[in-house]
């Protein structure tokens, strides 16, 4: 919302600087995003009078002027090429060292040998046109018409000496999306009276109802519709003061009638429209839903095919405006227009928003309606528009109007107490102060018994209850009055993480202990990621975003592997020689597609590593460290994962259930990604082990008898796995409490197709200490078992 300071001063006597006003607005909830000094570009440019003119001796088209610039010099010599200058003319003089629109700098210099101490300026060089100052569009030097003292800063003359407040208005305050609304706030802030907008006009005896019939068929989408007839129009240029205001607000002047509608929009925030009545068929105006397939061409010559939920203004045969969005080309104002119907309406904002979004058609009017227009202002605005018609003397105004209201909107009345307001704030704002603040904001406050009855101003549709009043009070009283307290009335609560959250934190701690660094990646990935991992069918089962930023971020991941791989590859490409990374995050699993019930979000752990020291078994270490820390036992079986090396990948199982996988990235995939380092990655379905992580810690008594450790070197077929041997060893003796392979060897002495495996076995006696014979006996039983089940012999 842009509000020019000069315009605001029409309504409030602002006696503080623009900077001070900016700070005050900020403190009461209106952040000035930018305070723009309109004439910032133009500096050291003053009014000068041409005292003499003579031809340049060496150039036909140049003239040498002598200028009287008051305090800046009485005989400043400037060479100009313009031919509209004359002795006695007042002109803008850019002095030596001045700057002009577009960042142009003016310096003293010589033109064809004659000294020139500056430049005479055109309107364009000052950054203005006729809307700012009549004559600015002239091809040549701007001639100043008023009699202003010589040496006056030109910005003061042409309207550039002004500030624009670009204000961020919050969504709850549509009433402040206009200059007058901001002025209302400033008047409350400064405790100064607000000058009302001129609303009086001279009405004639002819009537609107005698010329046209207006009806509203869709009152749900149009709570208030006002139409007023104006005839004997004189379409002409608007007066300078109006054009300058429009220019300050960034609008081009069109003609008086169009300018009045724009002016009222800027001033009061009410979009207005004017229909050329001569183009309305059957003298009928009807606010109705469009017929399916009905078409309209809007003022900007775009055609739209409409649906039933689009609201239109129609005449007897066709739509003449897309309600609240844009008028139709068929009923627009032209130079020939002699009679119009002014429209001031409140359209339901949600419908305008939907229509504007669906059709992709926006306007100042639609964005204003989307923010919300109040029915009260709808009535004020039509009077203002007619007042302007009258003031400008550009038309004759009918004696009656159509004002169709679904129901008369009554201002909000809140019955509350000063105490309730103060209780919410937590401080004691004096009752007198509360009352004064509310009254300054145009609330009506009546006391009845211990209660106050507060009537909100009609334009404040955001006010609903006493908390809104509390906000009004504190934003004016000042938030610096709020002093921190520490919930003296609250009950004690026991905070902290839940057991599950604590377990997840513990897992992260274990991973950090294994030198893993946590990563966080986007939850959405690309269907291409699934293709890369050779699991394109999985993309079909994923939840898709209907309005993604792009295809790359279009589906909710069902696996963390692609994001991990991408991160590893990025690190490799950046020349980082090694990395151990993990992510603990959700994957999103739909129960059915399209979604009809909440999907399950399953916490998943993904680990990825690379580097000189890494191999399959260092990768395996992270899973074992989790199992070890939580006292769990994982099994590993060879796996086939489409994106992993088939000989170097494993499924992880827990209690017989598959809980994850890991392994080396398939070499051909690594080649595709142009990486030469071996990469290992895996995922653990965290949700499946979560409950096992929650078991309480219980002390296990120390063994009563000394443990006995024996090493065994075994010869086995190449196909026999370590875990098979471990299992057989455990089955061979009930005293075995730990088995660890510590060496594997292949060589000529062992034989083709065989390997030697060395195991360290720990026995923990139960009833009595082991004698050497006891140990031998157990070893014997283990060897028998190994030989029977796996054909293994002692080396």
């Amino acid at each position, binding site marked *: 919302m842009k509000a020019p300071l000069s315009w605001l001063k029409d309504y409030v006597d602002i006696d503080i600087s623009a900077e001070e006003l900016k700070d005050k607005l900020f403190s009461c909830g209106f952040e000035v995003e930018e305070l723009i000094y309109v004439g910032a570009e133009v500096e050291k440019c003053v009014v000068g009078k041409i005292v003499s003119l003579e031809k340049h001796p060496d150039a036909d088209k140049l003239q040498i002027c002598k200028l009287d610039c008051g305090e800046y010099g009485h005989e400043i010599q400037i060479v100009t090429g313009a031919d509209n200058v004359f002795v006695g003319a007042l002109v803008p003089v850019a002095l030596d060292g001045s700057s002009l629109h577009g960042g142009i700098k003016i310096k003293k210099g010589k033109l064809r040998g004659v000294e020139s101490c500056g430049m005479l300026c055109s309107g364009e060089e000052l950054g203005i046109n006729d809307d700012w100052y009549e004559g600015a569009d002239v091809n040549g030097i701007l001639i100043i018409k008023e009699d202003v003292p010589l040496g006056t800063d030109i910005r003061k003359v042409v309207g550039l000496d002004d500030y624009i407040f670009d204000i961020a208005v919050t969504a709850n305050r549509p009433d402040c999306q206009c200059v007058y609304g901001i002025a209302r706030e400033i008047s409350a802030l400064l405790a100064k009276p607000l000058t009302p907008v001129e609303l009086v006009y001279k009405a004639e005896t002819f009537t609107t109802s005698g010329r046209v019939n207006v009806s509203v068929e869709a009152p749900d989408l149009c709570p208030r519709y006002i139409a007023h007839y104006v005839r004997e129009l004189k379409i002409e240029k608007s007066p300078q003061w109006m054009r300058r205001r429009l220019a300050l607000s960034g609008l081009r002047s069109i003609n008086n009638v169009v300018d009045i509608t724009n002016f009222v929009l800027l001033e009061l925030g009410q979009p207005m429209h004017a229909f050329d009545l001569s183009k309305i068929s059957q003298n009928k105006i009807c606010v109705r839903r469009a017929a399916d397939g009905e078409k309209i061409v809007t003022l900007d010559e775009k055609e739209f095919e409409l649906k039933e939920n689009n609201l239109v203004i129609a005449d007897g045969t066709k739509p003449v405006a897309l309600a609240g969005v844009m008028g139709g080309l068929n009923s627009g104002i032209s130079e020939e227009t002699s009679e119009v119907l002014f429209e001031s309406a409140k359209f339901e904002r949600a419908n305008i928003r939907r229509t504007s979004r669906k059709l992709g058609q926006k306007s100042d009017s639609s964005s204003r309606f989307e923010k919300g227009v109040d029915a009260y202002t709808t009535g004020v605005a039509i009077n203002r528009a007619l007042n302007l018609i009258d003031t400008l003397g550009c038309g004759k105004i009918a004696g009656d109007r159509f004002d169709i209201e679904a129901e008369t909107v009554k201002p909000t009345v809140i019955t509350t107490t000063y105490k309730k307001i103060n209780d919410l704030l937590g401080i004691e704002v004096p009752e007198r102060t509360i009352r004064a603040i509310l009254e300054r904001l145009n609330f009506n406050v009546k006391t009845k018994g211990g209660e106050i009855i507060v009537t909100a101003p009609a334009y404040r549709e955001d006010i609903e209850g006493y908390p809104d009043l509390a906000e009004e009070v504190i934003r004016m009283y000042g938030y610096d009055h709020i002093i921190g307290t520490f919930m003296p009335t609250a009950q004690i609560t026991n905070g902290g993480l839940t057991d599950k959250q604590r377990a997840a934190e513990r897992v992260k701690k274990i991973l950090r202990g294994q030198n893993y660094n946590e990563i966080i990646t986007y939850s959405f990935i690309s269907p291409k990621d699934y293709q890369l991992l050779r699991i394109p069918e999985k993309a079909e089962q994923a939840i898709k975003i209907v309005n993604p930023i792009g295809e790359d*971020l279009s589906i909710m991941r069902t696996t963390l592997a692609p994001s991990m791989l991408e991160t590893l590859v990025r690190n490799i490409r950046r020349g980082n020689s090694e990395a151990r990374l993990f992510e603990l995050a959700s994957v999103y699993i739909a129960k059915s597609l399209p979604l009809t019930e909440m999907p399950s979000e399953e916490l998943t752990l993904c680990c990825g590593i690379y580097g000189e020291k890494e191999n399959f078994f260092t990768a395996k270490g992270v899973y074992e460290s989790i199992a070890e820390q939580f006292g769990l036992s994982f099994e590993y079986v060879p796996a086939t994962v489409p994106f992993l090396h088939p000989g170097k990948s494993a499924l992880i199982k827990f209690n017989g259930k598959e809980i994850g996988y890991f392994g080396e990235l398939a070499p051909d995939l690594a080649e595709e990604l142009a990486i030469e380092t071996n990469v290992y990655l895996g995922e653990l379905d965290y949700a499946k082990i979560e409950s096992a992580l929650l078991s309480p810690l219980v002390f296990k008594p120390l063994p009563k008898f000394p443990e006995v450790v024996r090493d065994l070197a075994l010869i086995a077929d190449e196909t026999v796995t370590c875990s098979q041997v471990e299992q057989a060893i455990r089955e061979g003796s009930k005293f075995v409490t730990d088995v660890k392979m510590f060496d594997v060897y292949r060589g000529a002495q062992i034989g083709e197709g065989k390997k030697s495996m060395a195991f360290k076995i720990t026995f923990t006696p139960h009833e009595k200490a082991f004698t050497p014979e006891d140990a031998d006996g157990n070893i014997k039983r283990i060897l028998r078992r190994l030989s029977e089940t796996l054909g293994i012999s002692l080396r």
Partner: protein
Amino acid sequence: MKENIENIKNEISLYLAVNNHISRKDLFDFKMNYLGKTGSISALSKGMRDVPAEQRPEVGKLISDLRTWAEQVFADKEEQIKKAELAARYASERIDVTMPAQFRETGTLHPISLVKKEIIDCFAGMGFEIFEGPEIEKDYYNFQALNIPADHPARDMQDTFFVTEDFLLRSQTSSGQIRVMENKRPPIKVLSPGRVYRSDSDATHSPMFHQMEGLVVDKGITLCDLKGLLDEFARKMFTSETKTRLRPSYFPFTEPSVEVDLSCHNCGGKGCRICKGTGWIEILGAGMVNRKVLENCGVDPDEYTGFAFGMGLERIAMIKYGINDMRYLFENDVRLLKQFKD
């Protein structure tokens, strides 16, 4: 006899004088030749039988003196050898202590997790539970129950990713407020962290980011309580001098609503590049829970009041650690990650 004693003494002296670099073992063996059970000094004692009775005291004393003398010189020699051996060992075993250590590095938490953990630690101590709601959320929880009906202009404040008409990626952790209040009666003190999503992507916006929502509902909760809690938070999270400033704002689910600024930790409020000269850094949005929101969750707004606040974890991490581009946070370059030691 006397001659014998003198000879032994000379033998020992000579041996020890000559064998300067003798090993401890050789010294021991040599010593045993004299002082062992069958050694020559022991033999002298045994020879006392043959000494005439009147000479025995004198000879006895000579033998005893010899023994004392021998034990002393052997002990001295042994000590000397030990010292030499140790010195030699020290010399040979000298290492370069400036060579690199061998240890396992410890991994790190992502900076977002780190600030999340710090904030949770800060609030958990003040009685806040932690609730993590779903990321794929129903429109009702993300908007409607928070007093943002369909086509409300406040929906424009955040561009939302949709999955279906009813399901969306939550655009704010505020959705957690509703889920908490639906399942729990006051007193409520909850912190709700998590991933949120908005259709925005540039140097200061990421389509996925993290928020932390706080909610307190109890009897007699005031705006001053909100201020007090956030003051405490600011001091713990930043410095003990950090101040907060409230200023009016608007959120559909709070009334009054405030924007909360922190005094700039870099310049202490004087104004610098980081705070764009204002001395303040915008850090979170907050307010008193809107009565409609309480009603939507079946909490009587005449009996209870409450406040809520929400902050972006990326923003806090960037401010706290001086990270100047949000994209760094999602690149996961290991050189960045390793810096965030817990």
